[in-house]
């Protein structure tokens, strides 16, 4: 069971702090932040997601620059706690529309309300946005979306690239749109990771990438597909194959086979 949950900003300020069981000292957030910031043990640059200081175990995940932290004195399952932290971030994002320091600060009452239902005495109750809807009564204060950065690994590909922003990505699940909310949109982030190592002689080691996604769409649908064509170093990269079959109903992004030609 989790003793404390808190969210820290990049500067180490406490944005949200919840003590579930009271068996970990109050200044744990400071201890944690100092440890993470000055993590230089044997040349490591970044603190691992789990570490132990004086018998207290600190778990953390980084989401949009915010640190979501849980502490406990028990020997818990690391994957459980780390998964939970990710889910909490996702639930909060669902309710606030945008996950950022500003939106958290403006909506902390709602965030506490959510945390109350997600965890009781350090035990997880539910992390389902749907289930939580029946327990949540506060309404979010919407934060200006333009300045906010998109969430998750997709951000990497979207730097400078045109994308379909739309209200839906940054909309709270509880917010009501004025003038009818009949927009039928789904957003699917298809994130394909290709890992290629180039040797100094510009020879690449072929690496397989295999991910196929099938999305079923009902009725005649216009499909916008944005394909990022830049790699990390900014060089233009032409994807070899992008689609292997668009038939109106099923959009399938098939395997991109490549043998070092990129």
């Amino acid at each position: 069971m989790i003793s404390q949950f808190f969210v820290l900003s990049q500067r180490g300020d406490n944005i949200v702090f919840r003590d579930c069981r009271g068996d970990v000292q109050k200044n744990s957030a400071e201890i944690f932040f100092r440890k993470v910031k000055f993590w230089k043990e044997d040349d490591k640059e970044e603190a691992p997601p789990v570490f132990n200081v004086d018998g207290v175990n600190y778990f953390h995940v980084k989401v949009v620059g915010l640190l979501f932290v849980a502490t406990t004195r028990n020997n818990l399952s690391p994957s459980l706690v780390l998964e939970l932290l990710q889910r909490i971030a996702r639930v909060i994002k669902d309710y606030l529309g945008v996950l950022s320091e500003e939106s958290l600060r403006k909506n902390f009452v709602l965030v506490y309300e959510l945390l109350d239902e997600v965890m009781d005495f350090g035990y997880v109750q539910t992390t389902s946005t749907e289930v939580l809807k029946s327990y949540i009564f506060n309404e979010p204060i919407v934060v200006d979306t333009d300045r906010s950065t998109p969430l998750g690994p997709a951000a990497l590909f979207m730097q400078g690239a045109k994308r379909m922003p739309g209200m839906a990505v940054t909309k709270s699940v509880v917010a009501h749109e004025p003038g009818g909310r009949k927009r039928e949109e789904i957003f699917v982030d298809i994130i394909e990771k290709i890992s290629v190592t180039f040797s100094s002689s510009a020879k690449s080691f072929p690496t397989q990438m295999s991910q196929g996604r099938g999305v079923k769409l009902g009725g005649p649908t216009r499909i916008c597909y944005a394909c990022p064509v830049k790699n990390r170093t900014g060089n233009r990269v032409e994807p070899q194959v992008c689609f292997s079959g668009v038939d109106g109903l099923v959009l399938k992004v098939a395997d991109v086979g490549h043998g070092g030609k990129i």
Partner: protein
Amino acid sequence: MAPPAQSQKSASPSQPSGKGEVSDVKMQLRQLAGSRSPGTDDAKRELFKKVISYMTIGIDVSSVFSEMVMCSATSDIVLKKMCYLYVGNYAKYNPDLALLTINFLQRDCKDEDPMIRGLALRSLCSLRVANLVEYLVGPLGTGLKDGNSYVRMVAAVGVLKLYHISASTCMDADFPAMLKHLMLNDKDAQVVANCLTSLQEIWGLEASASEEAARERETLLSKPVIYYFLNRIKEFSEWAQCIVLELVAKYVPSDSNEIFDVMNLLEDRLQHANGAVVLATIKMFLQLTLSMTDVHQQVYERIKAPLLTLVSSGSPEQSYAVLSHLHLLVMRAPFIFSSDYKHFYCQYNEPFYVKKLKLEMLTAVANESNTYDIVTELCEYAANVDIPMARESIRAVGKIALQQYDVNAIVDRLLQFLEMEKEHVTAETLVLVKDLLRKYPQWSHDCIAVVGNISSKNVQEPKAKAALIWMLGEYAQDMQDAPYILESLIENWDEEHSAEVRLHLLTAIMKCFLRRPPETQKALGAALAAGLADFHQDVHDRALFYYRLLKYNVTVAERVVDPPKQAVSVFADTQSSEIKDRIFDEFNSLSVVYQKPSYMFTDKEHRGPFAFSEELGNLSIDTELADNVVPAQRVEANDKDLLLSTSEKEDNHGASNNSSAYNAPSYDGSRMVGASQAQQDLVSLDQPPPANVPVSLAIDDLLGLGLPVVPSPAPSPPALKLNAKAVLDPNSFQQKWRQLPLAASQEISMNPQGVSALSSPQVLLRHMQGHSIHCIASGGQAPNFKFFFFAQKEDEPSTYLVECVINSSTCKAQLKIKADDQSTSQAFSALFESALSKFGLP
């Protein structure tokens, strides 16, 4: 209910000081409290929000407590929630004020809206004020019987909260029994799950004090309860599933059919999107099949794909957790991932902690077939701009080289690193080349040629410098310049800050002198003089030692400093197999990430789900803390030994028996070796198992080999005959001890002669062994000794387990006996007593 607690610290200058604002709010709240006009609720909401935001940024708003409570008489749930939040935050520090809230919280507990009932009950239980517990009992009792599942859910956790405030109140009100009833009957899965977690914690904490709680805790692991949970598993939320799976992992099915049933039922959990569920399932599968070698192997095959998916699909944090587990698995079964090595190639955007684990995985999975590919990949990382990454990669290459696959090519690669002329690469590589040479002296010519070209000025890191100096000394006869390089290093003695390097320098110059005296004599003199004047104690002592040694006799000095060396065959493993096994027992916990068993990083009371194994574990733990290696008294009934080579296992057993506070009987040790040897034979099946070695029954069953258990003429009283060569491994002992009910518990007096003969635990062990009662673990010092014994019936696999605590000052022995076959436990108890009473008599 605690918004930022450090909010107590001084507010920043930009924030309002608070005083004026708070009294403002107080006034406004007072006005609103009585008002019933429309729109009041909205105004209240704004005010409440203000209060809470003050609270969050650290302004003390406890002065508005009574106004807040007055305003809380509303049906607006948002207002109520904010009020509960406020109350929860201040009640703990203001117990007097908290009393004010009891009234309205109790009233809310009877509200017609189940939401409000639930919320009020939760707040009530969260006040954490000890003198208010009496007000909790009533609402909790009604809450547990509430018609709405939300309220029951809150109440189930509420009982646990009450237990932590006042355990006696909770036990007196008989809440655990109510929870148990609810757990086994409630329709709502989350209520059931909360009951389970509360009961696990309550009984777990009570178990040490009360027999009953310990028994109740064991009933959680009984077949009907486990089946009840398993049948409902799909109703539970993913988090509750983790709890159930964790529970099932501790269950010991009675036969293999049951194991297969459970596994078939839970097979699809491996595909779950939640990594926590997948890992919990894997843990359960691994634990269930520990005794079934071939099925265990199939489990490894089965869990491979889900694990690899988790590594690549989740967040980097999740990958980290999963990779730690993969690393543990791969140490036990190196071949399982050997064809999937490409999954462990690093991606540029991964955090360093993930990359590091991946490199460890790559070294662990390397074998004949994939070494070339892996090393090629690693060599590319070595040229990485990311310096820590480059270092780690070079270390990984070195580790692979030490694993003896394809050494030839790797040595070439390493030597190429030296030509890259990057300081950190050279430094890392030198250290590795040194280790390689210690293992493969045959490569010295190739290496020396390259190493000789490195200017010692380009090597600054102490470890690398020490390695270089070591090589200069060790291969002085092959390196033309060795004496002169060493000489120049000695000239700069004062600039050398690392004592390690200076120590190496002394030794190297000695070796060099012994081989090429005329060229080195002068440098040696300078080195010894510098060493004697050194402020570092070790350096000074070593120089003095060499000096006296040389003065005494040069041949003797040669024998001491430069004897013919044997190549190192295996570098010492840092972790004992005992510790590795314990970590494996704690699969899916932090132990795996930290690579330490839980007792090394948690307090006793927080060990939680793994608490039980301590009872036996304690005995060995203490010895480890005392820095003694525990003799390998465990039977490796798990897969490990079957997978790794025999040689390693023999190593484990070799280092047996040192004098520590707790000793496993050496007798057991040797027997265990025999037994595990037999297991090995069974698996390889290339020779018939030796008929005189009893084999543990699980394996017997599994392979369908009905091995005759050789009867032996044990001199025991009539009625019950015990098998003189009974075998039981500590794991099964623990499992049985956990499962079986207490058959007999008594205190007997020992005869004083016996007690006086009990100088050390060993004496009694030998005596009891003569009566076919074997010891599995023992410990203690006068006057308190503790023993765990076991015995088996001669002609059937029925086991008796005994915990025996002897106090030699009072001549009393306390016995706890558990038995497979309850009907004969009395007979056994009598037999045990008679055996014990004969102790010390001539």
